[in-house]
């Protein structure tokens, strides 16, 4: 048998594996899209489950605050140190607060918040709904005449969409405070002077649009993790898998969709500082 034949023989099963993997991927993407469109329809449909949404905002938003604040402070300090190292070379230390504010508000704050929430909340929703699925609690909800999809998935997606912009604002503010702490140790700048400098060249739209894009991040995190929890199979191993995949898939989608959102924001506001 020639080398080419051997290669063909080895290559064939691999091709079949790849084909079935691609088919599975397409099928999964299709099911996720159907789940997402059902979620969008569910948001507009009664009952609005306000009590459950508030409960989930507390679970998702309030309980993420310590993580977001601590991360924001640390990111602010690190960004400030990096910015100083760069600005120093050009004698532009006075622009450090402005540069830090631009970096935080336009990209670092929203993206870092999205990734942190994808890690903490995505894993939580995936594991919680996956656990409910395999212990028949979702069936129990249905048997008690409750639309489980609306009660569990739609409320969590809504809560993520509401909590993300708020958490991003907290992250931005914490980052600026972290930056100030780093700066005041080195240069002794006052709080008032630091913040005046930071917001000098920033318009309200520069904050609003990048912060609002995190509602899309919230939709991605809530939908992906709810979908994976809802479709979990195979006992506790399946729950663990749903939890891990929720974090990986929502983080990946979030980073990719961010590229599109940044481009859209740039097209919408051509002349702003960011």
């Amino acid at each position, binding site marked *: 048998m020639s080398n080419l034949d051997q290669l063909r023989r080895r290559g064939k099963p691999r091709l079949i594996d790849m084909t079935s993997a691609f088919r599975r991927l397409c099928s999964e993407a299709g099911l996720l899209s159907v789940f997402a469109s059902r979620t969008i329809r569910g948001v507009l449909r009664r009952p609005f489950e306000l009590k459950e949404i508030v409960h989930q905002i507390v679970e998702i938003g309030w309980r993420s605050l310590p993580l977001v604040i601590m991360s924001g402070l640390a990111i602010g300090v690190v960004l400030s140190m990096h910015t100083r190292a760069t600005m120093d070379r050009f004698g532009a230390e006075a622009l450090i607060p402005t540069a830090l504010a631009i970096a935080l508000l336009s990209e670092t704050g929203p993206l870092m918040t999205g990734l942190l929430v994808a890690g903490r909340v995505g894993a939580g929703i995936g594991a919680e709904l996956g*656990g409910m699925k395999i*212990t*028949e*609690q979702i*069936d*129990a909800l*249905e*048997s*008690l*005449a*409750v*639309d489980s999809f609306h009660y569990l998935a739609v409320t969590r997606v809504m809560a993520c969409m509401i909590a993300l912009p708020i958490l991003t604002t907290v992250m931005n503010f914490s980052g600026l405070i972290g930056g100030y702490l780093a700066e005041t140790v080195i240069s002794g700048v006052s709080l008032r002077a630091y913040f005046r400098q930071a917001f000098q060249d920033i318009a309200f739209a520069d904050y609003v649009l990048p912060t609002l894009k995190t509602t899309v991040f919230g939709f991605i995190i809530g939908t992906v993790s709810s979908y994976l929890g809802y479709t979990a199979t195979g006992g506790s191993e399946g729950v663990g898998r749903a939890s891990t995949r929720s974090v990986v898939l929502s983080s990946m989608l979030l980073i990719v969709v961010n590229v599109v959102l940044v481009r859209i924001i740039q097209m919408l506001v051509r002349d702003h500082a960011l």
Partner: protein
Amino acid sequence: MSVPVQAIRFENVSKSFDGRRVLENVSFDVPQGTACCVMGRSGTGKSVTLKLLMGLLKPDSGRIYVNDTELAALDSRELVEIRKTMGFLFQYSALFDSLSVAENVAFPLRRHTRMTEGDIQASVRERLAEVGLDNELDKMPLDLSGGMRKRVGLARALALEPSILLVDEPSSGLDPITTLEIDNLLMNLKAAKHTTMVVVTHNIPSARRIGDSLVVLHEGHIVVQGKAEELDKSKHEVVRQFMESAEGRLTHGVI
């Protein structure tokens, strides 16, 4: 409006999973106010039968009627209304593990009634007293034994006072005394409230106690259907094995 005689009607129902036929042309009726026990070996579609009845699964073919209403013809809102008239006790209770015992039982009342909080609490106590657990209101499901969880599950299933109760293996994993207690609860319920029941069980003494009629499923088909005496008369091998196991005479089984 005339009252339907048959609370539940299965007409030639078939259901498959991944190409494996679990139920094939299964037909049976459950008259109002009676209990039907569905028996059979594991994997013969007993729990699937209950989930089809609750509309949690859809049949591949055939028709299922609940109080003369065909389930497949209902939209999601109408299905919700039908489900309010039914209760489901799951095999492993399926209690909401983030809610306490009292909150689990109160859950359907808070969702579907306009009762005041005081009335809800009173109703929860009453339901839990019926199953002998009115002292365990604040416990979490994970702190309860299997039998207690089952009784809480029953209290929750009965919270809306359903006219139809579906029970999935009430005695699995329970000692004979707790099994007898749960059987008595179900029999009292049938006698006092005229509740229609479909009870999936492996336990022949339980089935004899609770069931007005019995259905034995094997390989997707009904092999025996009728009163308890039909079981005694049946020559079907699986039924014979069931009977022998109940009498402690089974020494080997056919796999």
